[in-house]
């Protein structure tokens, strides 16, 4: 118990110590996006949905920032640990795989929630966004962070260098989150890409999260919940299993 709590503290202090990079910078990036799209789109509505573009965009950007930060927290800790050789202390400690994964994911979720809250607080005064279903926001926010935190752990275990890690981030995580309907309604896509998009798990995460705010979207959020829950469990279990066998960590 003390071990898990200590590791959680270590992992959360790590990002709190460099707030500029981990909280302020993502918030600023999201705000820049919003300013740009606010002036580019004006008061236009999202085609097919009865909602203005600005209100559509805010939850999507929030969720994208949360997902990327949850991933960054676990993956950077793993890769820095490997490069600096600090991960040996984790391996040598009596903390079990379940405890370690729990502590890492709890810190990832905390970072995602902090970043999400900061964005919301900054942007709320400039919009007439409502909070239609808070439980739905929390469900998708937390599940999304758990999935991304687990992927970050797995990516961190797999990577040998910062370059490997950057590759995972830039070629897998960024495209998947960017092309998940943050900036557009999926119904605007050609049918072929709509079909492909139906298989992108991040689409359901972002759409469900947004549904919690604007009570409308491209998917049925209640139906998607089951799939998201299963995906979350699978992601967490994979991270736990790989940690347990010491995949790419122990020879």
């Amino acid at each position, binding site marked *: *118990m*003390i*071990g898990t*709590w*200590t*590791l959680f*503290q*270590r992992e959360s*202090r*790590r990002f709190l*110590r*460099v707030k500029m990079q981990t909280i302020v910078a993502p918030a600023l990036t999201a705000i820049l996006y919003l300013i740009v799209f606010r002036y580019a789109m004006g008061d236009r509505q999202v085609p097919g949905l009865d909602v203005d573009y600005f209100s559509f965009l805010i939850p999507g950007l929030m969720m994208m920032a949360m997902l990327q930060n949850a991933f960054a927290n676990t993956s950077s800790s793993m890769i*820095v640990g490997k490069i*600096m*050789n*600090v991960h*040996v*202390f*984790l*391996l*040598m*400690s*009596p*903390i*079990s795989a379940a405890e370690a994964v729990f502590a890492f994911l709890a810190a990832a979720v905390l970072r995602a929630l902090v970043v999400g809250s900061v964005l919301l607080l900054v942007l709320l005064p400039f919009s007439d966004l409502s909070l239609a279903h808070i439980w739905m926001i929390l469900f998708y926010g937390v599940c999304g962070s758990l999935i991304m935190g687990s992927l970050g752990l797995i990516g961190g275990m797999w990577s040998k260098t910062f370059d490997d890690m950057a590759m995972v981030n830039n070629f897998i995580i960024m495209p998947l989150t960017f092309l998940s309907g943050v900036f557009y309604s999926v119904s605007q896509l050609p049918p072929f890409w709509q079909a492909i998009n139906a298989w992108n798990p991040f689409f359901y995460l972002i759409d469900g999260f947004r549904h919690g705010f604007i009570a409308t979207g491209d998917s049925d959020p209640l139906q998607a919940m089951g799939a998201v829950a299963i995906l979350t469990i699978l992601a967490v279990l994979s991270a736990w299993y790989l940690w347990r066998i*010491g995949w790419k960590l*122990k*020879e």
Partner: protein
Amino acid sequence: MNALEINNLYKVYGNGNVALQDVSLLVPEGSFFALLGPNGAGKSTLINILADTVNASSGSVSLLGHDLFHERAWCKRRMGVVPQEIAFDPFFSPREVLKFSRGMYGQKADDAWVDELLERLELTQHAHKITRQLSGGMRRRLLVAQALVHRPKLVILDEPTAGVDVELRKRLWDFMRELNAAGTTILLTTHYLEEAEELCDQVAIIDQGKLITSRPMKELIREVASSSLCLRYAEPLQLSDEDKSILSAFSPRVYDNQLCLTLNKQDSRSDFDTVYQAAKQRFGTPVDVSIRQEDLEDVFLRLTGDSS
């Protein structure tokens, strides 16, 4: 009770490299144990298996009577390992690192012990610096503090004094002696053989993944501490297989242009004349002769067959 009981331990790496071959070893509780061997002998592999950063291929280990591979958490809480490679968390200060380390071993904060460790390892002045600003020697001392912060019963030090200056090394060893006197078992690997000879009461030597010997230090020193006749020649020497077989009774070692041969005593008479004649017959008259008392280094070189 043995602090460690290692039975038939094997390690074969993924690339086929056999690092440990049927190593069995007892480390008595309360001993100050030296694990010696040339580079690449398998010392670090052995320690990494104990530390759980490398998986064993087969064999068993018990720590204070508990199976290491099945009761990992129990064993880990009683073991502190100083890894050979420097490792530090760039985000935190030594004090924070020690607090986190202790917590990760499931123990409540103990500021008095953390203060004492910082003091003993001469890190008090640097306790609030970020570890990135510490020198190499300080980082290594922090590793030692980290291994001790949960008050382990068994402390394992893998080359802890590499890069630490003489004065500090002495104080570090004084501290280890104190811990040992208080009942902590200490297992160390080192390249400084005089250090091992001075500190340790037990010694094991491994070479090419195999255990060569394991016994009390005194016994090893006594049994092998004979004298050697060293003959210096004008030219560097090389031993042919024939030389080796003819001189085999004297364990010939060559160091550049010096040939050293072990002297044996028969009925309290040294056989130096026989040895000298044998050498002279093979290599001619030397330019200089001396008699050296063998120390651990000679023993080590002889046992590991390393004459370089």
